[in-house]
């Protein structure tokens, strides 16, 4: 199955969500997991894996496939979908054709957004594009909003308003939010998975958060 993580807005947590979800699913050794890094900046294939190699951390618990090209992405996704049980696609935070191609080939699209008006606008555009890309592919591509970088202690007014607006408009969202936690930033900076970070209470909290998100995602995918 293919899950694309996309939004035309940068900095909303696409690569973090992709890496942490792939890591938590890879804890199940029975599953073959891959990430297709379709972001021309190659945040995962170049930066994260590069850091990992520098630190001699060994093989990642999932395969990382690099393809930042419009002309080959459909072939790459088809092949990755054939070879793995679950494929996450990390896309650039721009309004690119690549996102349309990835959406058309996906079993589910996750649209991360922070609780802000600008992210909301970008997420709305992404949802419309996913709907139309699905129509062009003659099928329905399900999509879920993932609210990211929320505060673990305080639910802000804009956060509350966002959830009310999403729910009022009937926009489907993942009930688990990806909270703002230092370990999520360290994952990218250190080239490690959450499970490889030095054990601490904040790492435990981040793992717990991601595990809940992964479980919810698994239930959605398994129900398809």
């Amino acid at each position, binding site marked *: 199955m293919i899950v694309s993580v996309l939004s035309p807005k940068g900095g909303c947590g696409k690569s973090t969500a992709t890496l942490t979800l792939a890591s938590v699913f890879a804890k199940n050794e*029975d*599953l073959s997991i891959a990430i297709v890094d379709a972001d*021309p900046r190659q945040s995962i294939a170049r930066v994260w894996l590069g850091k990992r190699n520098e630190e001699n951390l060994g093989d990642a618990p999932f395969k990382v496939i690099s393809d930042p090209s419009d002309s080959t992405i459909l072939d790459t996704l088809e092949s990755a979908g054939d070879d793995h049980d679950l494929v996450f696609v990390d896309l650039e935070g721009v309004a690119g*054709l690549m*996102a349309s191609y990835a959406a058309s080939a996906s079993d589910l699209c996750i649209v991360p957004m922070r609780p802000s008006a600008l992210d909301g606008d970008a997420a709305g555009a992404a949802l419309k594009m996913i709907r139309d890309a699905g129509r062009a592919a003659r099928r329905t591509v399900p999509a879920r909003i993932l609210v990211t970088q929320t505060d673990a202690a305080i639910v802000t007014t804009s956060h509350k308003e966002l959830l009310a607006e999403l729910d009022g408009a009937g926009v489907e969202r993942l009930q688990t939010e990806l909270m703002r936690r230092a370990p999520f930033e360290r994952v990218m900076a250190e080239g490690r998975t959450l499970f490889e970070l030095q054990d601490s209470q904040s790492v435990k909290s981040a*793992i*717990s958060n991601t*595990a809940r998100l992964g479980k919810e995602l698994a239930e959605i995918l398994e129900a398809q």
Partner: protein
Amino acid sequence: MAGTFLNLSDDDQEEPQVPKIGAGLKRKKKSSRPRADAEAVAAAGRANGFNRSTDTAQPSSAPRRGRPPLNEDMTYWRIYVSSDLRNQLNELRDKEGRRLNDVLADMLVAYQNGKVT
């Protein structure tokens, strides 16, 4: 209303539990859906403003002006020049399609060649 604004649950104190999630995915048959028509998908993307391409920009004989084509290997650099020089550079760009980048590249090559000889 207690707990509406403040999340006072003890979630953060829980031990992380990472069950083997996704076991059902292994049992799922891989769907063999037909490949989507790439042109139709691209058109759907463009209709929603998702139009940025990763394809390499093709050289064009038309005068180049404004921002460089996307994906051209360039970076943003702000410089100050006299307005007269700017007018001359703009004229060169409009007449011959040579941008400031091209002029600077020529200057650098000329400087380096002059240094060697």
